[in-house]
């Protein structure tokens, strides 16, 4: 009995390890785009990915045929959405996207919609359901975000730095 239990645990660990090996790169890429960090310096994305994978690990036995990748991505997205909502006010300075990010000119919600829709190829209906917003809003946000990514605004100079330059 105990032996069977142990071998089951070993198989489970092996399955999970191969899942992480296969999915971590793609998911980290998506998370880095979400947090708007540079690909070479992404502590927030790594933390987000670790939390999402740990959550998948904890519910690995209760997936019941559901795709673990989808589950992890869903957790990642909802967790980011919650965080983005909270950080929108005061802590924005910390959450401001790095200029080397591909999505540097987008807000957190636009990044979320764009990454889910285009980078991950999730359907519009599913994105709308996941974020709890109407379908049309997902559509327009995605269009606007795509346009911003293709034609970024010229000079997004931070207003705080300008007076100093003018004074000297």
């Amino acid at each position, binding site marked *: 009995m105990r032996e069977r239990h142990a071998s089951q645990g070993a198989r489970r*660990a092996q399955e*999970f*390890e191969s899942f*992480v*090996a296969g999915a*971590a*790169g793609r998911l*980290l*890429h998506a998370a*880095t*785009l979400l947090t708007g960090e540079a*690909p*070479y310096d*992404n502590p927030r*994305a*790594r933390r987000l*990915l*670790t*939390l999402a*994978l*740990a*959550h*998948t*690990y*904890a519910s690995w036995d209760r997936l019941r045929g559901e795709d673990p990748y989808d589950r992890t991505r869903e957790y990642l997205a909802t967790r980011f959405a919650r965080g983005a909502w909270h950080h929108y006010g005061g802590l924005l300075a910390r959450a401001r996207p790095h200029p080397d990010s*591909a*999505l540097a000119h987008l807000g957190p919600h636009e990044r979320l919609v*764009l*990454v889910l829709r*285009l*980078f991950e190829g999730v359907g519009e209906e599913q994105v709308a359901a996941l974020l709890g917003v109407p379908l049309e809003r997902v559509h327009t946000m995605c*269009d606007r*975000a*795509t*346009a911003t*990514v*293709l034609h970024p605004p010229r000079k997004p100079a931070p207003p705080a730095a300008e007076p100093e330059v003018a004074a000297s």
Partner: protein
Amino acid sequence: MNRLEREAAARRIMERVQPVPPPDLYEDVVRRGSRLLRRRTAVRRLLWLLLVAGLVAFTVWALTVQPWVEPPSDTTPPLTDW
């Protein structure tokens, strides 16, 4: 440029640089995941314990108080000599 082309172009921009996952990711995930599992088990055990304790307390109370037994009437004066 139509919608599909624009989407494809944006996808290419997003896929340009691929970040490398940290080497200790798996160990970190398993450590956190096991902690999550342990915590869940502890919470479930605690809830079961509370349920069982409540049931035992109720049974003991019911057996001692026996609320289904009609209490002896003490409003009517006892009938004596008639």
